[in-house]
């Protein structure tokens, strides 16, 4: 499970970096990226993913389909 940041949308405002409870967000080449290994979609921490809630530009932090929430065992 993970979110990702659409780089063409990201204004690199850094609002998400400070809010992420997993320290999964970092700056890379001027925009921000989410480390899918660290992202938990904030489950267990908050009701909503914090990067989505704080991001000033809509449709920037989105579900990363490469990391589905549930994988069949």
């Amino acid at each position, binding site marked *: 499970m993970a979110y990702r940041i659409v780089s063409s949308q990201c204004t*690199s*405002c850094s*609002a998400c970096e400070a809010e992420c409870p997993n320290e999964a967000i970092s700056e890379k080449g001027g925009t921000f990226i989410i480390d899918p290994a660290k992202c938990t979609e904030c489950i267990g921490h908050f009701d909503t993913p*914090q990067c989505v809630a*704080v991001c000033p530009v809509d449709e920037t932090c989105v579900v990363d389909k490469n990391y589905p929430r549930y994988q069949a065992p």
Partner: protein
Amino acid sequence: MDAVMQQVAEHKGCGTSGGSGKASCGSGAGENDLPPEIWDKVKNHPCYSEEAHHHYARMHVAVAPACNIQCNYCNRKYDCANESRPGVVSEKLSPEQAAKKVLAVASTIPQMTVLGIAGPGDPLANPAKTFKTFELISKTAPDIKLCLSTNGLALPDHVDTIAKYNVDHVTITINMVDPEVGAKIYPWIFWKHKRVEGIEAARILTERQMQGLEMLTERGILCKVNSVMIPGVNDKHLVEVNKAVKSRGAFLHNIMPLISAPEHGTVFGLTGQRGPSAQELKALQDSCEGEMNMMRHCRQCRADAVGLLGEDRSEEFTTDKIMAMEVNYDLESRKAYQAAVELERVAKVEAKKEELETLAGVASDIKILTAVATKGSGLINEHFGHAKEFQIYELSTSGAKFVGHRRVDLYCQGGFGDEDSLETVIRAINDCHAVFVAKIGGCPKGDLAKAGIEAVDEYAHEFIEKSAIAWFKAYLEKVKSGEIVHEERGDAVIRQGALIATAAAAE
């Protein structure tokens, strides 16, 4: 909110019944109008003192990119190199880079007295970066005043830290005290780890803003309130806002016109929400003035602006250039320069006073607006064709009162060609009877005359207010003798575009 509305209802105009003693302060206020400790704080601050803005410069450092609210007049995705408006920056800085930039600028521009952090996001949504920057600057350049501008949502949490770093000027952007109005301006806020929308969001925001304002003024920290005038949304409501912030000890109120061109991509820009006309803005500012002094010289500058208000030298101080600079911060030479500026200022005030005395006893109800082309220092010292803005003065028998500025620069080099530029100027100063310039060509002078605006160049390089009063006196005499007939002028348009950063680009 009940408490807020109660206080608004009980507010009794411009008296000082609250005991704050600040009612007489304001942008136009001079030394004799203010308690000494407040005069000391504002006298060299270009954003607080209308007189100081002719002489002193400020800079903003863009260390705070993150924001915790969304405003319908802000589009964070848009960053055009030629665009200068609040929230727009060319490059973001680390606190260390910002500290170096401040030293570099202060060494190059000795009249730079104020350092502000104003975004592009909210400084208090980036508290670590903001306060680290203040810490570094207070160590290396202790004479520079610190200020910050905030939306107020996080303000109550940081008031003690603001006091600790001796930040003596705080600006809060307050556009409403009624959540119903607020819901039309703010689509959401980020609050307690949740995105909150609608009236609930506006309710939280206004409570936090009022609480933060009260906490600051209790600690003696000077507070200015910025409001964006949005016709049909909060234009009438801003009178209420003015009362609410005044009763909580705000020192100065700055009502700014909405900037909402469709190409900016803001919500208001896209929905066709218009900005106010020059006369609408002035009427609102005038109607609030009885309650509290109004700031009229705001340039709605960039979050990385450098230099005097109305000029932007930020391109001289890009990160590459700063990092390559040898900085020699010489406090003594800065002090010497500023002492010379003070002498010039005193001379200007004296000259105005003497000229004003010649108006004494002249009775007339005539009030007229005039435009002035100036590069600063309170002088008529700009060529008509080079002016990117005009300063507007209202002349009456009580003197020359600064009431605002009008931008006439070309927006993004597109849409307006050279042939249109004179028309642009006339639209911007169409409510004025005269324009004072250092120099003007015959053709534009004739075209201005056809539009009913007299171009006056006989006061070139003289003090603005003294000259304006002298011209007004002559005007009144001509009206009295029947040589001319006094007629009212029309309305003027507030330029929706951008102030172009470099002088070269504007020519």
